[in-house]
């Protein structure tokens, strides 16, 4: 099983701040996905990155896939309380291999 390390594990910030979440592995992935999960619900797909060095933007969220396809980052600009949730990265294989997640709390 390919290990995905996410950091930080917990992040508490105020509305309007910027933040970056990291996802690292020693293995190469054909693609990597980011999900957001709210309490009591299943994860919801945010983005899939496939190409090394790829950058994708989803409103205030910017996702980057490392050149070597071993790591990825998620940057949120001007965080809002609605961004609160558990952010999970997952590497693609015969099944999704998930990191442990970053729990984000954005307070007004």
């Amino acid at each position, binding site marked *: 099983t390919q290990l995905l390390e996410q950091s930080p594990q917990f992040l508490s910030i105020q509305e309007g701040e910027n933040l970056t979440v990291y996802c690292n592995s020693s293995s190469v992935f054909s693609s990597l996905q980011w999900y957001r999960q709210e309490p009591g619900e*299943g994860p*919801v797909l945010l983005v*899939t990155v496939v190409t090394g060095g790829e950058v994708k933007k989803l409103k205030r969220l910017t996702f980057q896939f490392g050149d070597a396809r071993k790591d990825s980052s998620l940057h949120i600009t001007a965080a809002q309380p609605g961004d609160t949730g558990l952010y*999970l990265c997952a590497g693609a294989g015969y099944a999704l291999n998930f990191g*442990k*997640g970053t729990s984000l709390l954005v307070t007004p």
Partner: protein
Amino acid sequence: SQTIHQWPATLVQPVGSPLSLECTVEGTSNPNLYWYRQAAGRGLQLLFYSVGIGQISSEVPQNLSASRPQDRQFILSSKKLLLSDSGFYLCAWKGLGGYTFGSGTRLTVV
């Protein structure tokens, strides 16, 4: 459109009792289906996956089993629950755009 249904939403079961969680998918055929378990607020651990009827692959030794009696039905079972089986169980199917998850079952074994 494709949808995934999972039930029940919550379940409290005594130690030693049996378990059956059901997952069904609509709007697609021959989907790859998955069962994951999630500890409180943490990442998802793959339990089982299935690429077709009667085809089950198990990821970790455990007190659980899975079956796929129909193309779009995936069932997670246990004959005798343990306290350690408590957790949030998620069913998922793999589509072209990524994985879609059900809304999960919160299982508490008491």
